[in-house]
């Protein structure tokens, strides 16, 4: 059994007494070195989950455990050492006046000595491919580059979990790809759990497990292949089904049945190839 890193036990949350519940009785666990995608349409409660994990919000009901410690006012500073977060708007989380100052910010807050900081800035900027921009000012960077710097800033404090809270939502396709590539590199290199929160189903293919949120409850929890198979139901809750899943569905209607639910072009073509040799 893998080590449980994050555990939600019957968590409910709302912003105020009179407000509607944003999360209703959510329970799930995230394990060590795992990549989990949380998806759902805007307002489904997925970003609230991220903020609860970091102690930026506290649940009204239920408990949250990070590495076995309960999250509350006393433990938040320890929790934040273990859980790093990258937010949606690249501009509104860039604190430093240059790239290296921004990467340093989290370390400065924790009193890490300067020599150590310089080393860590180097490794974490290299990990995200931004080492050539150390002295660049934020307004000369693209959105994707800013987000990579934000990831470097989190890596520099070596947390156990990295949460990307819709970190690609405001980026162009090129930036989105930069981030997705960076993230999968990072996941391979550093032993770190990864939680990506998104409404783009194409971004969940690489994840090991997908949690689908709808109206504040966990609607489904499965691997990407199983999720992709539920096309009509996904559409009902406002999510977009990827092209390849749609094509597979149409082919099935024509009587071409595939072994697996394909996740990408290659898998589909591979299945078709096998079928065609036996046709």
């Amino acid at each position: 059994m893998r080590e449980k890193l994050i555990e939600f036990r019957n968590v409910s949350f709302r912003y105020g007494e009179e407000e509607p519940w944003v999360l209703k009785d959510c329970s799930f666990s995230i394990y060590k070195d795992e990549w989990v995608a949380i998806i759902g349409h805007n307002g489904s409660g997925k970003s609230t989950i991220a903020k609860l994990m970091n102690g930026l919000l506290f649940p009204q009901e239920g408990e949250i455990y990070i590495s076995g410690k309960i999250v509350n006012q006393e433990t938040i500073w320890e929790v934040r050492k273990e859980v790093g977060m990258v937010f949606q708007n690249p501009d509104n989380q860039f604190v430093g006046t240059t790239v290296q100052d921004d990467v340093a910010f989290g370390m400065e807050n924790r009193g890490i000595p300067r020599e150590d900081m310089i080393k860590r800035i180097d490794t974490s900027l290299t990990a995200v491919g931004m080492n050539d921009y150390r002295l660049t000012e934020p307004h000369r960077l693209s959105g994707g580059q800013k987000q990579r710097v934000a990831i470097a800033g989190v890596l520099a404090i070596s947390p156990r979990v990295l949460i990307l809270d819709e970190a690609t939502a405001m980026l162009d396709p090129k930036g989105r790809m930069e981030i997705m590539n960076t993230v999968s590199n990072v996941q391979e290199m550093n032993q770190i759990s990864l939680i990506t929160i998104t409404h783009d189903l194409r971004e969940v293919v690489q994840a090991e497990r997908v949690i689908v949120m709808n109206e504040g409850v966990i609607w489904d929890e499965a691997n990407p292949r199983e999720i992709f198979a539920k096309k009509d139901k996904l559409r009902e809750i406002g999510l977009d089904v990827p092209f390849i899943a749609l094509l597979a569905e149409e082919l099935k209607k024509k009587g071409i049945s595939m072994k697996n639910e394909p996740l990408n072009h290659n898998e589909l073509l591979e299945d078709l190839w096998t079928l065609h040799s036996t046709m």
Partner: protein
Amino acid sequence: MDITFNNVNYIYQENSPFAHKALENLSFHIPSGSFVAIVGHTGSGKSTLIQHLNGLIRPTKGEVRIGDYRLTHADKPKNLKELRSRVGVVFQYPEHQLFDETVEKDISFGPKNFGVMDREIRKRIQEVIPAVGLSEELLERSPFELSGGQMRRVAIAGVLAVKPEILVLDEPTAGLDPRGQKEIMEMFYSLHQEEQLTTVLVTHSMEDAVKYADQVIILNKGSKYMEGKPEDVFTQQEALNKVQLDVPEMIEFLYAFEQRFGKAIPFKRQSIEQLADQVYQSLKEAGVDE
């Protein structure tokens, strides 16, 4: 109104150490009534191009013609305001421009500035509100109480209430979830057809460009890189990859299919259903051949 660019150059902060060329020798023609997609990376000059369309900026060199209005470095049209009333621009994240106390006042802001009479404005609001998918109950609410998606619709309603002939859309679906994106694009497309608008869509989404546009202009580093019908432009995968642009997913699939099976299925903007049929047919033929 037709839109014509003749050798347009635009330089930001000319004659300073920060000078930066945003458009270079750009020429194209958009006939009245067409739906054009402008595609390119961030920094390819798309936003600079857009700002020429309603005279927010004028070319450093060259000439822009919008109907009878002419913009050059030296001349700005005397009736700039009239031009702006005929060219509506929905900027990126348009909800950032909301400011008035109520949704109704905010939507009326544009038409009022352009001298539309109150009665006419009220009439237009009645039309525009359902068109953007809002309910009339929201009219008396403050725009800042609404959800992000609703705010976006209010902002769009404010542009539509001016009744422009040319509608310029700068990534109108950025930041929305898939359902919201689809609803907004479908709304613009039906408006385009019903009102015979000329629509200029700036987008990163190749899928939207293929789905809605009659003409595609690809910009790269401030210059025109390619131009033509979507089915002609997007099938040139190599040329597009060279400037790091993707092709629509269906074309990518067709390309991979051809590599694998040695059979070409031409891209004709077919639906996924039609594509499945073509794949099925060509597999059957191949099976018979062997």
